[in-house]
């Protein structure tokens, strides 16, 4: 897991704050290869993939990926993921012209293995997950 995560950048250590505060930089400064590019922030759930905890019923579409994720409290769960049509080619094309950041409100333990699988060409996207989120009216 550590080998994988070194390819992907993640920012940690986020304290409670309100939107009016000056937000710290979540994203590291652009690396040299990304300099001057625009940033494309993509949502994960319902935009690139659709995932579910329920196994598909007979007759339903077979899931593209099955992930075994571990929650923060140590429990494990299977997640059945369907990938949106054209998502792979979309990511490859966008990674050529943008600095791609994948954003999700779900946990990093789910986002990382999923994005690792989505990233067939080893592009290395930046991940923003629940740890970097600010809770508002939640």
């Amino acid at each position: 897991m550590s080998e994988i995560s070194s390819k992907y950048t993640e920012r940690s250590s986020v304290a409670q704050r309100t939107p009016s505060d000056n937000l710290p930089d979540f994203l590291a400064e652009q690396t040299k290869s990304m300099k001057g590019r625009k940033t494309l922030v993509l949502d994960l759930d319902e935009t690139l993939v659709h995932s579910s905890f329920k196994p598909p019923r007979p007759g339903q579409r077979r899931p593209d990926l099955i992930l075994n994720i571990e929650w923060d409290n140590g429990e494990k769960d299977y997640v059945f993921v369907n990938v949106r049509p054209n998502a792979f080619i979309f990511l490859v094309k966008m990674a050529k012209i943008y600095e791609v950041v994948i954003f999700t409100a779900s946990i990093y333990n789910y986002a990382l293995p999923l994005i690792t699988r989505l990233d067939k060409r080893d592009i290395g996207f930046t991940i923003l997950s629940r740890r970097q989120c600010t809770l508002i009216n939640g």
Partner: protein
Amino acid sequence: MKDVIIVDNSPQAYSWQTENGLPIISWFEDPRDDQLRKLVPVLERLAQVEDVREFIPQIVGRNSVNFYEALRALKAPREESALDSVINSLTKFFSGTPTTENQKKEEYKVPKTVRRNTEDNKVSLNSDFIVNQNFSKA
């Protein structure tokens, strides 16, 4: 912020930066979904504009991207290929005036017989060219 684009199925995600957000239809299982494919040319063009906030309000309406409007509002990304430069220099040589893509297209449409004999036609072509130039700057 002029270089950031957010693609998300729920507009709340970018409710503070509507000028940076591209909505996309939530995807659950439809295997014929082509939103990502349609988004590629739009994003390719947005990658080349100076400020994305200028264009995004133009092309987003009613919680979806108006793809037709988007392709109209954004110029096609195009670098001058080797063939283009040859054509350009040839037309320069024969016409003695600098050419642009727009003018080339115009000349292409004009039938040979008309092009050969009229001075007026040339004038109108040139004025077209000026108008087009202003247009692209605006």
